[in-house]
């Protein structure tokens, strides 16, 4: 089976937040909850990089390890999902997660935690695929329709990729090789390249398939 992963290419991400908006709209997530966010490191400084972060669907998920009610499960595609009917909103997954993926809608009289909400890789939840109940609790189930997560599909620079880890790593490998070839053949790095190539240089760094 495929092992689904997200991959965000920091050399390509332009911090447009299209993925965040697409996710929010597609999954109709509760107020105050964003399943995905774009973090910019060194904002405004040389070497600035942006990354789109959501649940990374870990192979050994810390959230699943610490959950006191054992509400997490991993699908055949390697997507880490949880059952909101089981979740008690204790927040342990939030403490354990390296990526800040679990989100809690402010619920109840004292704005304590509601049931946890996180990225589902657009794969819904334990209910019947694309049922109304599943959509209400977990949002869209695009995987069941044979589509990939909308955040990655909508990414304008194809910085955010989603899909089988083997395919993603192959794409990334090609990108790295092309960037390396660009450095070698032109003696300039990707970082130093200007938006418009100087007229003295010839050739293209990206390969055409």
């Amino acid at each position, binding site marked *: 089976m495929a092992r689904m992963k997200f991959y965000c290419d920091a050399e390509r991400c332009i911090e447009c937040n299209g993925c965040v908006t697409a996710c929010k709209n597609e999954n109709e997530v509760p107020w105050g909850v*964003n399943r995905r966010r774009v973090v910019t490191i060194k904002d405004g400084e040389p070497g600035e990089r942006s990354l789109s972060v959501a649940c990374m669907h870990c192979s050994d998920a810390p959230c699943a390890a610490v959950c006191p009610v054992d*509400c997490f499960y991993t699908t055949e595609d390697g997507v880490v999902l949880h059952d909101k009917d089981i979740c*008690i909103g204790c927040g342990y997954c939030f403490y354990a997660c390296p990526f800040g993926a679990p989100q809690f809608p402010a619920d109840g009289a004292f704005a304590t935690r509601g049931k946890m909400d996180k990225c589902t890789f657009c794969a819904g939840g334990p209910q019947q695929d694309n049922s109304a109940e599943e959509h209400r609790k977990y949002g869209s189930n695009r995987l069941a329709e044979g589509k990939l997560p909308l955040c990655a599909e909508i990414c304008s620079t194809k910085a955010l990729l989603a899909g089988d880890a083997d395919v993603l790593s192959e794409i990334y490998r090609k990108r790295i090789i092309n960037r390396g070839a660009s450095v070698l053949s032109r003696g300039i790095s990707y970082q130093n390249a200007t938006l418009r190539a100087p007229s003295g240089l010839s050739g293209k760094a990206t390969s055409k398939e």
Partner: protein
Amino acid sequence: MQLTEMSCRPSVAPVSFPLCGIALFFILVFWMIPGSPVNAAEMSVPNPGTDLWRDVRQRSADDMPAATPGIDLWKEMQLRYEGQTPLTGTTQVAGVESGHLINSIGDQWRRFRMEMLVPFGGYVLMGMLAFVVLFYLIRGRVPIQAGASDKVLFRYSLYERTIHWTIASTFLLQAFTGLIMMFGRSYLIPVIGHEGFSTLASLSIDLHNILGPVFLFALVLVFIKFLRRNIYQKGDLTWLLRGGGVIGKKHVPSNFFNMGEKSMFWLLVFVGGTIAISGLIMLFPSFGQGRVIMGLSHVAHGITAVAMTAVVIGHIYIGTVGMEGALEGMKTGYCDLHWAREHHDWWAQRCEDDGKAIHRKDIPSAGSKKASPGLTTGQTAENTAE
């Protein structure tokens, strides 16, 4: 190119040995002749990239622009992750720590809970239970040696008993619900299933959270009410050194509260206070505290709660089955005179000197509103504690 292909494929028709020898001879001869085509730098090998690769090899690593220029950033991130400093950026998404790219304390917290708190917490509590049972089997119930007296001393007022039982019941319910959430996944899910346990855990966490502020409130009341009688005084060290009378046959004299009870009070104040405050930090995530603070709060909450539960197991043992007459004071407000003489003799002596020992039949019945001797003697109980 052709040569390497041939040498790689044995299936190609083998070149005869003499032919090879002649070729080798000529190569060696040509090599020795300066300026021969074999030695020429401009040898027309069909590999136009050679110069480039040579150039690359000669360039030092510092001059080489990295293929992934962000690599230094990721290295820094890795170092900071291992050094437990979160790498913070900016983000458009509002929320607590949404700018933290990686939560550096999460994995440590996970290891603490799963590999230390849950197993060792279980060992400590089971060990304490086993110790209490063993202690009972060896030592047995501590009797009132002079037998039950027909006279009693007023010990706890209704208010004192109320706050005691409030804090006792909230603590026990919280300990019980906490244990359900701590060990339920291992022991209850296999028995009652995921849905059943989820309902139980949901009720448990709600009860646990609602009782949290009640516990803290009761703790403050207990602290104010019992503080004066729990200040350590002369004689407490002797009590401690003789293990409260366990070491040696003779009873160790003490005041209204003995050294053990005083220690229980201070444990309740400090350890119980830590439990309550760390719990409140986790209970209200809306004040913007981050995962580092909440993770550390959970560590403090877990350790102190297990320790306090173990202490309370001992407290309950000695207050009920462990000692005859110990429960009476906290149940009815009056304690047996002989029990008081044997366990709190300084206090009992003062009460008797003041003529406060009353006959059992003079105890006002519960709920009677006349004269309220409970209240007046209640004040004296505290005054005599000095």
